[in-house]
C-alpha cells in the first residue's frame, strides 16, 4: 500500500525563548514561568493516496504543528514522517515539489498586483510553465466565481474573495498532496460550499490526489472526509471513518437539552452514568445548551433534578442519534468551539 503521508511517533516540543528564561523579575524569579510545551505527542498515522483525511481538534491541539511538519516548515523533536515517500527531515525538496498548503484567513500576496498576477507569481515558484499557469488560473477563477475579479488588485478583495484566491493558489500548482488548514474559516455559506464541492471533486475525480484537511466545522468533516483523526493535546485519540466513529458511541445514549442559563455545570462532572458532557451558553437567548453522553438513560432524572435545583427551566429535552460532535465530546470532553 502506498501512503501519501506516514508519521511514526512524531513528537514536537516547543521550548520558550532563551531570553525569556534568562530574564528575571524584580524578585529574582524567571520572567517566564512557562516550561516546554508538547505540541505533538507520539503521533502515528498513515494516510493513503487518494484519501480525503480530516483532522479534528480544538485550538492548540497540535493540528497546525502537524501540518507545518508535513509541509517541511518545521522539524520534529523526535520521530519520523514521510510525505510522498520522502523523509521530511532529510529530503525536503522532492516533497516541496509535490505539495501545497492553504490556510484560512491567510493574507498572502501583494496588494498592488492583480489577483491573476499574484497567483501567477506563486506558480512560478513551483516551476509551472507560464502558459500552463495562466490557463489553469483562468479555469480556476471561473470555478471559484472569481472571474469578475481577475484584474482587480488584491487589496480591493473582500475576505471571502481573498480566501477563494488563496484556494486557487493552492490548486494552480496541481499538487499531489494538498494541506488545507481551516480553509472555510469565516466564509459565508455559499463560498464555503463552492470550496467544499471543488475539494471533493478534485480528490474523487483524479487518481492519487490526497487532501489533509483541518476544520472546526463538524458537518464539513463529516460530509467530506473519508477518515477523521481526533486530536487533542498533541495526541491522536481516535482515527476512523466518520461512520465508524459514530458507530463506536452508538451503544452510549446521547441527550440534548436547552435550559435557562446555568450558573454552574460542575455538578455534572463525575455524576454516575455520565461519560462526558458539554455546555454552551447563548447570551442572546439567555440559555445553556447541554449535550450528555450517558451509559444508559438512568442518570437523566439526576441531571434534571440538578438543573431544577438551580431554579432553571427546561426548554427541551431530546434523545438523539450520535453525531460527529458527540464523538468529539466523548473523546475530548468538551465542544470544539
Amino acid at each position, binding site marked *: 500500500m502506498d501512503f501519501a503521508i506516514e508519521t511514526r511517533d512524531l513528537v514536537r516540543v516547543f521550548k520558550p525563548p532563551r531570553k525569556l528564561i534568562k530574564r528575571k523579575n524584580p524578585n529574582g524569579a524567571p520572567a517566564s514561568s512557562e516550561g516546554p510545551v508538547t505540541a505533538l505527542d507520539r503521533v502515528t498515522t498513515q494516510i493513503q493516496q487518494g484519501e480525503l483525511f480530516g483532522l479534528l481538534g480544538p485550538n492548540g491541539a497540535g493540528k497546525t504543528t502537524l501540518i507545518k511538519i508535513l509541509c517541511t516548515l518545521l522539524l520534529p523533536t523526535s520521530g519520523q514522517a514521510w510525505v510522498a515517500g520522502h523523509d521530511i527531515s532529510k529530503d525536503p525538496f522532492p516533497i516541496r515539489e509535490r*505539495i501545497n498548503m492553504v490556510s484560512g484567513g*491567510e493574507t498572502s500576496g501583494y496588494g498592488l498586483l492583480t489577483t491573476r498576477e499574484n497567483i501567477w507569481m506563486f506558480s512560478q515558484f*513551483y516551476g509551472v510553465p507560464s502558459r500552463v499557469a495562466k490557463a489553469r488560473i483562468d479555469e480556476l477563477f471561473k470555478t471559484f466565481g472569481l472571474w469578475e475579479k481577475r484584474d482587480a488588485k488584491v487589496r480591493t478583495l473582500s475576505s471571502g474573495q481573498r480566501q477563494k484566491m488563496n484556494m486557487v493558489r493552492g490548486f494552480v500548482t496541481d499538487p499531489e498532496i494538498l494541506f488545507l488548514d481551516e480553509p472555510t474559516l469565516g466564509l459565508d455559506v455559499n463560498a464555503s460550499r463552492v470550496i467544499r464541492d471543488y475539494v471533493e471533486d478534485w480528490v474523487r475525480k483524479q487518481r492519487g490526489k490526497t487532501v489533509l484537511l483541518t476544520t472546526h466545522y463538524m458537518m464539513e468533516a463529516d460530509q467530506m472526509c473519508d477518515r477523521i483523526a481526533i486530536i487533542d493535546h498533541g495526541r491522536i485519540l481516535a482515527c476512523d471513518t466518520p461512520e465508524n466513529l459514530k458507530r463506536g458511541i452508538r451503544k452510549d445514549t446521547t441527550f440534548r437539552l436547552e435550559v435557562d442559563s446555568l450558573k454552574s455545570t460542575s455538578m455534572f462532572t463525575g455524576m454516575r452514568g455520565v461519560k462526558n458532557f458539554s455546555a454552551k451558553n447563548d447570551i442572546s437567548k439567555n440559555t445553556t445548551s447541554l449535550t450528555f453522553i450517558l451509559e444508559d438513560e438512568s442518570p437523566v432524572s439526576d441531571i434534571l433534578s440538578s438543573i431544577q435545583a438551580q431554579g432553571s427551566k427546561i426548554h427541551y429535552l431530546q434523545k438523539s442519534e450520535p453525531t460527529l460532535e458527540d464523538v468529539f465530546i466523548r473523546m475530548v470532553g468538551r465542544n470544539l468551539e
Partner: protein
Amino acid sequence: MSAATATSRIPHRLKLNLQAIVGRAYPRIVGANREPSWIFFEAILPLLGIAAYVFIYKALGDRALFGVTDPAEIARIRGTTNSLIATVVLGGTMVAFWLNVLWSMASQLYWEKEIGNLQLYMMAPMSRMALLGGMAIGGMFMTSVRAITTLVVGVVVFSITLQVSNPLLLLGVFFVTLIALYGMGMMLASLYLLWGREAFNLSALLEEPIFFSSGFYFPVGGFAKFGTIGGAMLAFATAIPATLGLDAMRQIIVPGGPVLPIPVPWSQDAFLTADVEFGILIVLAVVFLFLARQTLAYLEMLARREGRLTSRHQ
C-alpha cells in the same frame, strides 16, 4: 539517486530557479511602478537634497573665482566646481540604491513574514537564493528607473558636463556595485529577520553615518586629510560597496581629473584607480553573496528547528 537522475535534475532546478527569480522580481518591476506618486516622492524630491549641496559648491566656486583674472585659473576652478557638483548629482542618484538596499531589501524578509508570505516561500521548492535574487533584481530595476530619472533631471537642472572616459568600465563598475550592494542587502535580510524589530533601529542608526562616510555628497578621499580618525572612517567606508563604486564612477565620468581620490593605505602618494576599485568591488560582491547564502541557510535551519521565524506572531 543515480548519476543520470542527478544530472537530469540540474536543468530542471535551474529552470525552476530562473522562473522563481522572474516571479519574485515581477511585483517590484510591475507593481511598484503602478503608483505614479513615486515620480514625485522618489525621483523629484531627492533633487532637493542634491540642490542643497550643489548651491554650497557653487557658492564656494564663485568665492574662489573672486579677483581671479587668469583665464586658465578660471577654467580650472570652474572645472573643479563642475566635478564637485557632478559628484553630488551622481551620489544623490546612488542614494536611491542605498535606501532601497537598507529599507526595502534588508527588511523585506521581515515584512514577508509579517504579511504571511514567508512560510509560503519557504514551503516552495525553489532555492532560497532565487527568492532573494528575484527581490534584488526587482529592486535594482525599480530603483534604476528612479535613479536614472533623478540623474537626467539633475544633469539638466544643474547644467553639469559629464564625459565618459571608459564606457565599458563604467558599466562594469555600476553593475558590480549594484551586485555587491544588493548582496549586502541579501545578507542583511536574513539577519534582520533574526533580529526582528531591533534591526529597524539599526537601519535608522546607520542611515545618516553611511551617507556621510560613503561620500554620497562629497569626494570621500577628503577623509585622508583628517589623520587617524579620517583614516579609520575611510577604512570603514571602503567596506561599503557604495563608497568604492561611487569613487570609481566619479573618476570615469567626471572630466578634469580626480577630486580628492581615495589614497592607498600603504602609500603616501598612490591613489585607488577605477580599475583597482572595480577589482575590490568584484571581491566584495562575491563575499557578500557567499555570506548571504550562508546566513540564509542558517536562518532556514533555525526556522525549521525552532519554528519561530517563518510564522507570524511567533
